């Protein structure tokens, strides 16, 4: 269940990658990172940009703000940035929704970071406990008789859990046995025909 440790950041040579699948993976990751940086640059500095990238397989990926077509046209026709009030209105709209989206994204990323940190501290706790009690060691490390003992204890606990779960369910259902109180109970819950 523990995450396999990755190699971390490695310094690589800037030359065409030899292994094909390494090349594919690198393309995928770096293209994604590149678009992310472009998106951030747009947000932070309010600039217009277009990036066009061909994949090793020949597919084309593009990122553009306000959009790729607009930038490509502007580049080829050498037109200055559109300045009409219509354009500015559209742009204001877009900026507003982009602002919203960025807020939403930031919130999610923060939550994700918090959960990751929580996961890490839970892992540490687990590692600690594993050293102290033999039955908390990872299952691969246990001897056969230890496994059998653990199995028996867990099966017992499982019975208790099933029991408790039934108890909780019974607490929700009105009891049928007590004639004195049950009539009022059943009436108030309205379960009369449903459950029994």
């Amino acid at each position: 269940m523990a995450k396999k440790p990755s190699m971390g950041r490695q310094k690589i040579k800037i030359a065409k990658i030899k292994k094909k699948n390494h090349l594919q993976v690198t393309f995928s990751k770096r293209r994604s990172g590149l678009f992310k940086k472009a998106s951030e640059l747009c947000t932070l500095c309010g600039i217009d940009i277009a990036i066009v990238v061909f994949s090793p397989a020949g597919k084309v990926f593009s990122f553009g703000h306000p959009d790729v077509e607009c930038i490509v046209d502007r580049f080829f026709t050498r037109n200055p940035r559109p300045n009409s009030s219509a354009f500015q209105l559209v742009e204001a709209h877009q900026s507003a929704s982009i602002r919203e989206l960025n807020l939403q994204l930031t919130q999610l990323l923060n939550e994700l970071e918090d959960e990751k940190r929580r996961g890490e501290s839970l892992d540490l706790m687990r590692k600690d406990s594993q050293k102290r009690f033999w039955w908390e060691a990872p299952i691969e490390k246990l001897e056969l008789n230890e496994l059998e003992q653990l199995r028996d204890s867990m099966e017992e606990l499982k019975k208790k859990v099933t029991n408790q779960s039934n108890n909780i369910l019974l607490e929700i259902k009105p009891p049928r046995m007590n004639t004195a109180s049950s009539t009022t109970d059943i009436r108030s819950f309205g379960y009369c025909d449903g459950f029994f």
Partner: protein
Amino acid sequence: MTRKKVKLAFITNDSARKATFKKRKKGLMKKVSELSTLCGIDACAIIYSPYESQPEVWPNTLGVQRVLAQFKRMPEMEQSKKMVNQESFIRQRIAKASEQLKKQHKENREKEMTEVMYQCLTGKGLQNLIMADINDLGWVLDQNLKEIYKRIESLKKMTPTQVAPPAAPPPPPPQVAAATCEMLARGVHGQEQKPAVESGNVEGMQRPQWYTEWMNNPNENLGFGHGDEMMMQFADNHNAMWSSAFFP
């Protein structure tokens, strides 16, 4: 390179914005260049900023024209299939982050309930758990039990005769004895402290002669803490014997 977290919003301070722009634009161009070289692909970047009348480009004007021409030559469908703008790109990022968050939640929940499981194994009561916890606890127990049964199964398959040390052997098979000592040394909680040598599989299992001989000659390869060696020797013997006696 600063490691302060930058807020994902328009930088209102003019000079800060300009400085950020210069740095990040430079970094972005470098990244495009690296991507192109590492993967041997064509790419271009065009940046219009309020600071320059002409767009800043990579690799150069001619290079950009070439790539864009190549781009335009592709069918419309292909062009737009992987085309994104700020809005669609950020939505994609949001979707991905949501997925990751959900997954992380689930992982953490599992870890949490595993803690609860171990606490309950050592006697903590179930009364304070709500229905959702009870359900998840049951799930975690099932997962663990599945793994335990699988492991027991595979261990039994490997060395079947080692499964069943007799109830009161003098002395007990080394690896079981070692385990017992280990258990006691690690201070086992009373609840699970069943006798280590208790096992019902002995009956009905034929023990090869060499096993009995080995049991009766304890002095040969005894030694707690040599559990691994023991297993090895044992396994060697048993392979030879097993192949003839039990797997003709």
